[in-house]
């Protein structure tokens, strides 16, 4: 028989038992739907992860704090230990494999004044040579420190919109934005130490200001400076303090609060972190937090994939059952066909085509439903996914977050699986059909 005739006959046979055909196809639809959705969610997680990596950066950064938090192997906080961070450790870290940048960090709070308004700044002072390595964002104004001039203060994009009037009687906190073109800003370290009443209060008018572009990350809320420049101004400040407090204040910057290590590749973060642990230091990295989230989305995927495989197996059984039933029903027809000179390979092909058609229709419908499901998941899936991934950070939950992405190849893969399973399920019944004796088959009622 010609392929077109086989197809026509197969379709006719499927039409004869509509309810049974539809139910069998339904099994394939559900199976392929699960498989497509599973893979699409996997793609969604990966996509989000990549997007986050791009947006936030910082995934290649390892931080060592003076207060190293110790966790047990389940990730629960146990205690905090003091770690001594000094130049020798910095040098040691610089020599490590996969490490592209190391910088000591000093964090300090300061107040900003502009006219009658004030604000606060979290200053992060670090080696300006490593700014690039730590993926500092582009500047909307000013320039990063150079070797000649390090006296730049770099504001995050949100820094200037946070000023307020401390004497305002309004109960509502109204942030005021400072315009650098008109307003002048000065910086003060205040509150912690007693100033020397005989000296003039320290106040640094800011002249060399740079602004970062908005990044939707921690950069927006911080203020950055070169470490040496920071030390310079801080020591100036210390000189204005009372004698007993001066020593304490100076001591504060003698040890680093933090060391940041930039790793060349995201895959090597764990390795470098392990080496730091070997040195006896506790460190943290974003990767540490991301990993369990990836795992939890992995386990979600695993459950769905398991369901998909189970439904596929069930639908394979139902296809096999359908085909066996079809053979019993059409026993007489098979006999007639054989006597009329139908080659047995054609009879086998006929049953295989029928099975494949079930797989094909199931696959097509499965794809259609999967696309619909994907749209629904992306629209209404947020509560589900935040419930399933503790911390909810695997997905950067915004309006346009996509949880399910169907890559272009997936429909074809799903179709292939459906047809493959159908053929496998149809093979043995089809072989059985060819073994039927024509004379016996013709005697049956049909």
């Amino acid at each position, binding site marked *: *028989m010609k392929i*077109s005739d086989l197809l026509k006959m197969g379709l006719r046979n499927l039409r004869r038992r509509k309810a049974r055909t539809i139910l069998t196809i339904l099994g394939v639809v559900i199976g392929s739907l699960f498989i497509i959705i599973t893979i699409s969610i996997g793609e969604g997680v990966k996509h989000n992860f990549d997007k986050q990596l791009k947006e936030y950066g910082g995934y290649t950064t390892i931080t060592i704090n003076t207060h190293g938090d110790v966790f047990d192997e389940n990730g629960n906080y146990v205690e905090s230990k003091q770690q001594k961070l000094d130049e020798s450790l910095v040098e040691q870290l610089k020599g490590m494999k996969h490490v592209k940048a190391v910088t000591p960090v000093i964090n300090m709070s300061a107040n900003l004044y502009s006219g009658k308004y004030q604000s606060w700044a979290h200053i992060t002072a670090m080696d300006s040579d490593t700014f690039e390595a730590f993926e500092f964002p582009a500047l909307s104004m000013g320039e990063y420190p150079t070797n000649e001039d390090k006296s730049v203060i770099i504001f995050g994009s949100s820094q200037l919109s946070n000023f307020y009037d401390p004497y305002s009687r309004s109960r509502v906190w109204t942030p005021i934005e400072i315009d650098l073109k008109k307003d002048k800003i000065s910086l003060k370290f205040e509150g912690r130490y007693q100033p020397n009443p005989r000296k003039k209060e320290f106040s640094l008018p800011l002249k060399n200001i740079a602004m970062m572009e908005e990044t939707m990350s921690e950069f927006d809320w911080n203020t950055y400076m070169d470490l040496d420049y920071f030390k310079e101004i801080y020591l100036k400040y210390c000189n204005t303090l009372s004698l007993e407090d001066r020593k304490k204040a100076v001591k504060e910057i003698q040890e680093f609060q933090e060391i940041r290590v930039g790793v060349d590749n995201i895959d090597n973060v764990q390795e470098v972190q392990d080496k730091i642990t070997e040195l006896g230091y506790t460190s943290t990295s974003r990767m540490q937090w991301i990993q369990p989230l990836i795992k939890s989305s992995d386990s979600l995927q695993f459950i769905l994939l398991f369901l998909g495989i189970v439904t596929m197996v069930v639908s394979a059984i139902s296809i096999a059952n359908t085909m066996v039933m079809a053979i019993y029903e059409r026993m*007489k027809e098979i*006999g007639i*066909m054989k006597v*009329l*000179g139908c*080659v047995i390979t*054609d009879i086998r092909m006929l049953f295989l085509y029928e099975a494949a058609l079930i797989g094909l229709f199931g696959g097509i419908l499965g794809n259609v439903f999967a696309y619909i499901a994907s749209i629904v998941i992306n629209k209404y899936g947020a509560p589900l996914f935040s419930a399933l991934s503790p911390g909810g950070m695997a997905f950067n939950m915004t309006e346009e977050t996509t949880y399910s992405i169907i890559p272009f190849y997936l429909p074809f893969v799903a179709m292939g699986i459906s047809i493959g399973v159908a053929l496998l399920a149809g093979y043995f019944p089809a072989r059985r059909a060819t073994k039927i004796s024509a004379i016996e088959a013709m005697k049956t009622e049909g």
Partner: protein
Amino acid sequence: MKNKVKNENIIEVKNAKKIYRMGHERICAVDDVSFTIKRGEFCCLYGASGSGKSTLLNLMAGIEKLTSGQIIIKGRNVHRMSEKGLAKFRQNNLGFVFQSYNLMNAMTALENVELPLVFKHMGNKKRKKLAKDMLVKVGLGSRLKHKPKEMSGGQQQRVGIARAFVDNPEIVFADEPTGNLDSKTSKEVMELIKEMANTNHQTIVMVTHDSELTKYADKIIHILDGKIEEIEELKTDHLNDEDEDCIENSDEVIADIS
């Protein structure tokens, strides 16, 4: 094929034997049967039910396996062929008419007649035309799109005949073709088969238990308990509608010859 010698033996059955096993019992359905059928002959296997005549027909058509012996059709040993070879051989040389019509219930008359041509990979247009012409010939030109269930027994058997003859096979096997029909329809169907066979000079092998039908035959093989009781050769030429009465009682004729 039509210009071949008329007297050539198209079917040769040599010592054909078929033994069925029913549990521990062995039943000899066909017991050491030998005969020949000439090209263009209308041969009738005549016997009571259970005599083994249908089994013999099935053996000749290669539908059932021989226990021993040989069946040679057109010089080829039917039981030595591969399954595929036999299927192809049937496609090209054999036609079948059954007692219970054996039409495909899901298909229309036209599609049923097309079926043997479909197996032969014939193109859609060509086979449709052939099948349609055939149905017109058997007088069912107005029922092309009807399904078997929508037709009378006689009409169904006409479809069966159209299907058997559509590819102009050299041999047509007919197993009790009128078994399910009343006597009037039986006569019509038999006339049709006879006419078809005469037109294209085809060989017919028909199984029947109805002595009425033996009058259409050129050769009657009487079968009893799996053995040939008698082979009776008749002259075809004076077998037509006018002489029907002369051989009304064929049993007597047979008696005379023997």
